[in-house]
């Protein structure tokens, strides 16, 4: 049983591409916040929870948002949609903010809304809440984007019949460096709707190629 990558999203400073096509671009030399907020607003989602998210979750959320405009998940049982993400710095970007808030004992005001984001899997939570995804989920940490790591995990989920579709990829953010690469993996037998680049076989080689070229 084989799987296919039916859509992919890439968000890097400062452009967004969907299946290899640039969909949004911003001027260089702006901050992540200055980039992601206008982009979010341009989609007119009406989802104010976005503003409470930390940067990492905002990045993951936007990647998933674009992805799910390419892939129709309503065809699937939401208990069988998998989300398997990875990154290098875990939640370090927000960890530093939380540490900052407790560093000085005379200015000791830890914030629960910051602390809750000091876990990298929270962005999976945000994506799950938004799209009501209740299936298998996992957050893996690797030094670099590791296609084999993700392939093994996701392929195993399909083999074990734990998922019918899986969102997987790399969502990394630390200070002003960010990189999101998200793929939608479906069985080769699934029909798909929406504009796609043409399905590609789900394999470490294809993932590496997509990651290099998008």
């Amino acid at each position: 049983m084989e799987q296919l990558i039916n859509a992919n999203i890439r968000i890097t400073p400062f452009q967004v591409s969907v299946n290899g096509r640039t969909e949004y671009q911003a001027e260089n030399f702006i901050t992540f916040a200055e980039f992601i907020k206008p982009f979010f607003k341009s989609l007119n989602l009406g989802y104010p929870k976005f503003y409470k998210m930390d940067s990492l979750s905002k990045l993951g959320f936007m990647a998933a948002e674009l992805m799910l405009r390419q892939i129709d998940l309503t065809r699937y049982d939401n208990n069988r949609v998998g989300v398997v993400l990875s990154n290098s710095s875990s939640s370090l970007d927000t960890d530093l903010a939380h540490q900052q808030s407790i560093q000085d004992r005379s200015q000791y005001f830890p914030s629960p809304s910051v602390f809750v984001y000091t876990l990298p899997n929270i962005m999976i939570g945000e994506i799950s809440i938004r799209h009501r995804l209740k299936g298998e989920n996992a957050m893996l940490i690797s030094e670099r984007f590791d296609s084999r790591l993700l392939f093994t995990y996701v392929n195993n989920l399909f083999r074990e019949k734990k998922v019918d579709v899986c969102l997987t990829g790399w969502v990394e953010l630390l200070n002003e460096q960010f990189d999101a690469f998200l793929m939608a993996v479906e069985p080769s037998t699934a029909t798909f709707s929406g504009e796609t680049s043409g399905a590609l076989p789900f394999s470490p080689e294809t993932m590496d190629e997509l990651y290099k070229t998008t």
Partner: protein
Amino acid sequence: MEELIEKLKKEVIEQLNLEDISPEDIDTDSPLFGEGLGLDSIDALELIVLLEKNYGLKIEDPKDGKKIFHSIRTMAEYITEHQKA
């Protein structure tokens, strides 16, 4: 009191990351929780931090939170009552 209420509205917006909301959108007497602003359990905890950080007021019993944070006005009244001169 009015000055405090206006100040509080701005602070609540900032502390809770209510970006699409301006002070004029917040009704002084409407319940903060429930409908309206769509605040959740984390927001409730953040308001406790707000009181401590901006007004030096520590809420000893978190159960008092429901009364104190009922509306902007009840927050302002609590602050006025408890803040040292």
